[in-house]
Structure formats: C-alpha cells, structure tokens
C-alpha cells in the first residue's frame, strides 16, 4: 500500500464512530450476535462460558444469550475498584480461555470505567478468533478447589532436587486428598489446564498411561499451590494477575534465592527469570521455605518489598525430609565394583555429590584432595555430578589430576539405588558448597550413617546440627577444607563418633513433610472439595 493510500485508510477508520460512542442497545445487540451468530461451536462454547462466569459469581443463569450478557453487564457496572479488576480478570480469562496479565486487566478495567460494560464486552468478544473450524475448548471456572501447578515437572524426566521435591510432595498430597486438581499450562503458556492422565503420571513419577482430553480451568476463590519454579515471563506475568485477582489463596514451596543472592554462580538468564517469578510471588499469601536458611533469604526479600507498597507472603520454614532408601547387599556390591577409584578397590572412598558448577566449590575439594595425596594420604575421590554452567575449568583440573595418577573418578549420574549404595560405601562425603537452599547430599549421606564435611553456615549447618554426624568447615578457606578432610580420613575415633551420631539422627519422612507443608500452605482455607461451576451448568 502506498503512503497516501495508507493515510486515507487511516482517515476513513477514524471517521467510524468509536465503539464507546455507539448507543448501549446497539452494542448489546452486537454482543449477542457475536455469541449466537457465528456458528454452532462458537455459540455453544461461549454460552457455556457465560454461564460459568455467572455461576462462579453466585448469579442465576438466564436462558437466552442476551439475558446472560445483560446479567454480566449489570455485575460489571456495579463493581467498585478492586471488585471491578477482579471481575474483569475472571470474565476475560473465562470468555477468552487465556489468562490476562496485569496490564491487560488494567487496560480492560479502564475501558469498563470510561465506556461502560457493553463496550468492554463488545471488545472482548470481538477479539476472539473466529477461524472456520477453530476448536472451542471447554473452560471450567473452578471454585473451592486446591490446584497444584506441576507444569514443568509434568514435562520433564529430570530429577533435580526441585523436581524430586515437587513429585514426592504432590504424590503424598494426592494420596491423602484425591480432590486435589493437578494443573499445567497450555502450549502457548497463557492458561491453566488440568493435567491429562499421561502428564499426571509423569508428574507423579507413576507408570505411563494414555493421553487424555484437554480441559482449561480458571481458578476462582480456590487455592493455588506451586511446588516448583516458574521462570518464563509469559507465565509469571499471568500468574501475577491470577494471584492478585482470582480471590484465591496461594502458596509456594520456596527453594533458594541463589539467582538473586549469588548471581555470580548462575547462568546469565537466571537472574531476570527468577526476578520475574518474584513479581508474582510478591502477591502470594504464604511460602514454605525448604530450610530455615532459605526462609531467612525469603524474609530478606520480603523486607526489600517495602518500597513497592506490598507486604509479600508470610514466610514459614519446613525443612525437607531425610528419608534414606536402604540399598540391598547386591546393589552395594555392584556399586563397589562399579565405583572403585583404584585397581584393587581397597582405598577408602571420599564421595562428592553435585553438579560441577562454581557454587558447589568443587575446586576446593580437588585442592584439598591433591594436598592430602601429596602428603601420602591413601583414599579415592568419587565425584558424582553432571556438567553444568562453567564446569569446564573444574573438569580440566580433574582430568589433569587423573593424568598424574591420582585415584579420582568422575561419574555424571547414578541411579537412585546406586547413589544410596555409594553413600553407604563412602568413608565420608564432602560438600563444602558456598550456598544451598537445603544441601540434599548432606542430608542423604547422614541418613545412611556416613559422616559429612560441609560448610559451617546456612542450611548445611542447620542439617548438621539436627542430630550431628557432620564436620563443619569454612568453604572459602582451602586450609580449613583440607584439615577437615585429613581428620575424617585419619582420626578413626572422631570418625566413629560421627558415624554414631549420624545413625541416631531423627528420621523425617516425605508423608510428614508433605502434611506439614499442606498445613502451612493450605491450612484452614481447606474446603471440602472442588466445585466446577462450568461444566455443570446448561449450555
């Protein structure tokens, strides 16, 4: 199109009266036609969505489309500031099937105030796609239910610490409360959907089953729980609006603040992604931190919120469980053969578990090991962990030590039974990490009765002091790490004492943990069961 042609078209558009200037009766008619007059599938779906909104708002559902729209317009017109934004959120999410972000809620609320409910509804309906043959999925407004968002865990076979926590915890919740609704996000990351059976099975770590039909849900006066991380801006922006406007209680399991408090140890994109999640978390009601130390980090962030005019969520700390999976003798023997660091397999084993990223401070472990090997100490070092961000220098150093004949093995991953066997075989575990939300290897090693060398602060100290069995060092001082490891290798009486302490530690189980977290996150807000107003109402 040429410049003048484009300008004349723009002039022509400007000549058409703005929607806000049309009389209400004309707008109401246009809205009704937009629902009823564009094909059966669209009509059926939109009428059901209107009914779902009205039901969720405890309003009788009239039969005709025009009456349904009028009832909705009346509710919108009567709402004051906060109620208005909440209603706009609910109506937008349910009619479009896409959760709006905060700017969209504000834009539409302002249109509602300036131009009235019919103009608002007309714009909303007019923006809906009407491709021939477009699918019109069913959208349910869910009230009084508990929704658990397992989007990432349902899509991955990864078993990092976070997925392990999300899987085990949710599995316990589902076992004791079958009404819990597991949800993920749509492929466009713009709405919540009930996890179909295949994804549900993967999320819970159960055997695979066939896929099922997709059902989009809009929570309203429900409870929303997030036991994993959320890092995509598309999701965090929408979650923020959901937590602000869905009148639902919300709770998160809070891992660590490493991307903010130790950015030098994470990949470049992680800081902005995590900060995006925090903009949503600021509107949650409560978070359950995985240790006291992680709780301190979240409380620090909460104090930082002062200047934003928000109070942030209540922060509680529920330490992760330390349930050991006892390996049988056959597995232990298999591990002994597989994981030996010297030909004979007779050297005492020092175990180091964790990905080779700078935060884990594996450089200090190698430096300490080399110093002790040079002194003539006899032990093998087994490092279990994958490569990660900035792992190259560490791996190069380890390979140089191997080339010079040191008894050092690197294993990128182990099955759970073999890992537990490795813990059991080891004389001690070393974990002098700079910063941890929990420090899983510390808890795991102690759970099988193997002493640990770890950092003398934060969550690692916390786990150590919960029953003993650990030697605390300063991870920023190589000499402190070296002296500690030497003592664990050479002082048998001291080592025996730590073993004794580790074996008598209290055991906290996953069911205990899941129940405790449920009480913190859901607490008295728990209701009898879900009430899906959408599908139940007549179409």
């Amino acid at each position: 199109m040429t410049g003048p042609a484009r300008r004349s078209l723009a002039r022509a558009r400007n000549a058409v009266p703005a929607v806000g200037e049309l009389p209400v009766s004309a707008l109401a008619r246009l809205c009704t036609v937009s629902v009823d007059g564009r094909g059966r599938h669209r009509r059926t779906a939109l009428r059901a969505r209107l009914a779902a909104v009205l039901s969720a708002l405890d309003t009788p559902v009239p039969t005709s489309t025009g009456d349904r729209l009028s009832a909705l317009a009346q509710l919108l017109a009567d709402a004051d500031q906060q109620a208005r934004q909440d209603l706009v959120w609910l109506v937008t999410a349910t009619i479009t099937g896409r959760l709006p972000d905060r700017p969209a809620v504000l834009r539409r609320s302002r249109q509602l105030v300036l131009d009235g409910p019919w103009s608002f509804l007309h714009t909303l309906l007019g923006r809906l796609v009407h491709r021939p043959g477009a699918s019109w999925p069913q959208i349910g407004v869910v009230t009084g239910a508990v929704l658990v968002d397992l989007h990432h865990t349902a899509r991955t076979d990864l078993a990092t610490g976070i997925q392990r926590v999300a899987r085990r915890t949710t599995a316990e919740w589902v076992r004791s409360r079958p009404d819990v609704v597991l949800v993920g996000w749509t492929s466009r990351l713009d709405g919540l959907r009930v996890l179909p059976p295949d994804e549900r099975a993967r999320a819970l770590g159960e055997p695979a089953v066939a896929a099922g039909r997709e059902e989009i849900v809009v929570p309203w006066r429900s409870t929303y729980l997030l036991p994993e991380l959320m890092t995509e801006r598309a999701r965090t922006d929408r979650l923020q609006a959901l937590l602000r406007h869905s009148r639902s209680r919300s709770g998160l399991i809070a891992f660590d603040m490493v991307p903010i408090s130790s950015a030098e140890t994470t990949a470049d994109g992680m800081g902005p992604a995590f900060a995006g999640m925090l903009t949503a978390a600021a509107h949650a009601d409560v978070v359950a931190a995985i240790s006291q130390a992680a709780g301190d980090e979240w409380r620090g962030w909460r104090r930082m919120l002062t200047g934003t005019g928000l109070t942030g969520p209540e922060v509680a700390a529920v330490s992760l469980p330390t349930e050991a999976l006892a390996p049988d003798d056959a597995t232990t023997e298999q591990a002994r053969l597989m994981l030996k660091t010297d030909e004979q397999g007779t050297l005492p084993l020092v175990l180091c578990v964790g990905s080779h990223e700078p935060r884990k401070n594996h450089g200090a472990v190698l430096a300490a090991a080399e110093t002790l090997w040079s002194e003539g100490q006899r032990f093998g070092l087994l490092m279990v962990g994958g490569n990660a961000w900035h792992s190259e220098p560490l791996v190069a150093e380890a390979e140089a030590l191997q080339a010079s004949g040191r008894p050092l093995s690197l294993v990128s991953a182990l099955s759970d039974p073999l890992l537990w066997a490795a813990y059991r075989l080891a004389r001690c575990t070393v974990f002098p990490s700079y910063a941890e939300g929990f420090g899983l290897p510390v808890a795991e090693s102690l759970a099988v009765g193997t002493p640990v060398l770890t950092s003398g602060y934060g969550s690692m100290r916390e786990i150590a002091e919960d029953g003993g069995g650990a030697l605390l060092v300063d991870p920023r001082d190589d000499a402190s790490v070296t002296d500690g490891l030497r003592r664990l290798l050479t002082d048998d009486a001291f080592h025996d004492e730590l073993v004794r302490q580790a074996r008598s530690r209290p055991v906290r189980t996953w069911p205990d943990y899941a129940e405790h977290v449920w009480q913190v996150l859901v607490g008295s807000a728990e209701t009898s069961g879900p009430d899906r107003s959408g599908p139940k109402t007549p179409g």
Partner: protein
Amino acid sequence: MADPSAPVRVRPNAAPVPAGLTRTALGQRLTAVWPELVGGPAPEAGDGELLVSLVAQVAGDGRQDTLWLLWTAVAAAMPTAGELLSAHRLLAACSVDRAALGMLGLCLGDAAARGHADRTIELVVGEVLVDVDKTARSRLHTGIARVVRNLLPRWADRAAVRPVVWAPGTALHRTLTPAENERVLRWDGRPTYGAQPDLETADWHLVVPWKSVVVLPEVPLPSACQRLVALAASGSSTVTAIGYDAIPVLNADLLPPLEPYRFVQYLSLVKHLTHVAAISGSAAEEFGGFVDMLGAQGLPGPTVSSCPLATELAGAVMVDLDAAAPPSSGVPSVLCVGSLEPRKNQVALMHAAERLWREGLSFELVLVAGGGWGGESLRQVKDLTRRGRPLRVLQAVTDQGLREAYAEARFTAFPSLHEGFGLPIAESLALGIPVLTTGYGSTAELAADGGAVLVDPRDDDALTDAMRALLTDDTLLARLREQIRARPVRTWDAYADEAWQQLVAPWLPGGVL
C-alpha cells in the same frame, strides 16, 4: 592495530622511576608495590628477580590482600575473584620459582587482552578514590549523575579525594582527562554532547588503590563489578557505595530483562562491600533486606545506613503565587516529570485525567519525559491527542524549560509504582508546587514534611478523586502551599557532609576526617 613484534613501548611514568635505572613498565609496577609488600625501597634488580622475591613474600604470608596487589601489578589489571583464587592455589601448591612463572602465565593473558601491559601505575595509598565512570564520560544528566555532580565538587575540597574512571578494557582505574574533570567537578548544565576525549593524546595514567577507601556513587557495569568484587573481598581497600534502589529485582515485570541481569551482577558486588549509604529510608530497607539474605551463605554483608538525598534545588526560587503569571494555556496545568515507562505509571495518570475531562473539568496535563520505552503510554498519548484532549508531551526539555513548566503548574503528579527517592517531588516542593504522589516507600517519606497529597497509585478511583480535589479545592491547595513554606530544606552541603561521614570517614586509615 598494535604490531605484536614491536618492542614494548613505555608510556610516560606516573610514579617516579628510580634515577639511573631504565625499567620496563612491568619493572616500574613491581617497584611501585615493593614498599607495600616487602618494605623499604625496591632493590636494583632485574624484573625477574623482583618478581620472584615478591612471589616468595606473598606466598609466605598467605594473605589475600597482598596477593591482590601483586596480581594487579603484574597484570596491569585487577583480578577477578576466580583469578585471585587460582593464584592463591598456585602459590599454595608450588615452589616459589614455579609459582612466579605460573603467576606470569596467569597474569599475562589478562594483561595482553586488556592492553595495559606497557603502562606504568600510580599506587595510591591511604587515600579516597571515587569511581565516577558514567558521569565523567557522558553529558547525560540522569538522577545518578546529578548526585555525583553535586557530591564531588563538595568532596573535592577535602584532602586526598581522587575521582577515577575505568581504563579501556575495564580492568583497572585511570585518572580523568581534563574534559572528564569538567563534567564531574564543574558541571555547566549545557545539554550538548562534547566529543569523546582522545585517550591516545589526553593525559591520563593508571591508578591502583591500596589500603584506601574506594567509593562507588554509581552502579558499575557488570564487567567492572567482577573486578571490584576481588578488590573488596580481598581486603586490599575498603569499598563503599551509595545505594539507590533494588527496583530491577523487585519490579522485573516493569523493566526490560537487561536491567535485572545487570543488577544481580551488582548485588554480587554489594555483598562484599563494607558500607552502603542508601538514598532514602525505603532504599535502606531494600539493601538491608538483601543483607538479611546473606547469612544463608555465611557472609556478613555491608552495614547499611539511610542518607537521604538533598531536597535543595540550586537557584530555586519559590513561585510567588499572587504574582504568578497564568498558565499560557489559560487553564490550570498538571505537570508530571519522568520518563515514559510502566513503573512511572503515567498510564494511570492519563486515565484519571480522561475521567476528569469527561466530567467536564478544564485543565491541561503536561508530561515532561526525557525518554522512555512505554508502548502502552505512547498509545494512550496518541489516543487522547486524537480525541483533542489538552495533553502536551515535552521531550528534551532544558533546565530553564523545566522551571517554566513547574512555574505554570497548579500541582505536579507523580504516582510512581516504585522509587528509590523521587527527585521530581523534591524539585516540585523546592519550587513551591504541591505534589500528588504515592503513599508508600520513598515518595511517602519525602512527602512526610508536608505539601503533598498521598494516594495508592494502583487505585484508579483514588487517583482520580485526589486529582479532582487538587483541581477544584482551592482551600486544599492553599493549605499545601502553606505546608511547603514550612518544610525544612536539606542542602547538598548537608548531604555531602553526611555521606562523607558514612562512606569515607570511618574507614580512612587513622580515622582522618
């Protein structure tokens, strides 16, 4: 491009070279640090002998600060924390001769990459260095630049204050060129863009702090932060900073992703600082909250104090309302100063204005925006303009033009969602103009002494009601003007004094004031 086969050229020396000796730049640098590492003047020896002696000395004491100084002298670049750790492990594991060679190997890569191996250094001991990198290089007069340009001239009278910027390669500080000095110490307010100084011809040299106080009144670039971490963490000097806000990690949804990325790199430095003087009580809570996080990683973090910025506006004369000229438009004017971006919330302000225009109120809305990136606010400006609303957007306004806009305003509106301080509020009040602003955080602090109406900027109805009241209620306006006259003024002299007491005085060797 430098010819790698050409002999290393020695640039003019900053520190005196012992008479009768011809030294390479490396030799000069080792000689410069010798008195601090070994004591007494450096012996007349070759570079290699000097290096081995210094390595032996530093390996023997096992300290981080002396190792930092040796690395900086050898590499002509400050080490990163990772580099310093590598050197520490090298010295702990090897004989002196091998460690000396290893140090050369570790350092020379950096020296070659950063391009200063052929330069001499000036070692600055027990003085005060102020990193004014962005302000010195640019004529932009941002909020931070305003602070630096008001602070440095007031500090310059004090003994031993040295403004510094980063040398090319961002690995080491250098002195300022005359033009840069002008921009920091004698700001003339001209919004013109001077030619960048020619570092090939200008007179500057590298500066290395030792047992000094290094003050950061700006937020350094991520590459600079990496070097400053080791400077601070090794204890070579005391590093303190002015803390502006933590907006990028608290309002990431309102900002492009580059900002939180940069800011978390800055936080990696903040945790090793000695002290942060925050520009408001609210900003102090933000940095204090961050420090609260650090126990989880075994670090004490900096102490944090509140040192609010000045509310004084140089040359400000309160508008005489009785004699004030009526606005050029003939109707009351509402002024909003701030870049067009979501955080500044002009979209809500324009919405409230549109509601009041529809009610039939007659007033003009003037947005003074020095830049910005808010697509939503631009769309709204276009929409309101199309409807013929009395809305003006002024860009690239001179200081004089801004004063005129203030003088014409009935009140200013600043419903920002989050501020570290709220400079436009201070400006408005200094000129005697009442303010409508946000009822929490730093803006509420500024308003506490009177002259402002506070609202929740997320509540459109409240914002509309407050604007209506300010436009129609002359008694309210008179009361606010009365309050403004009774407000105490915080001068830049007072700010500079207090900032010195918090950022410098306690950490100077010998407690020099």
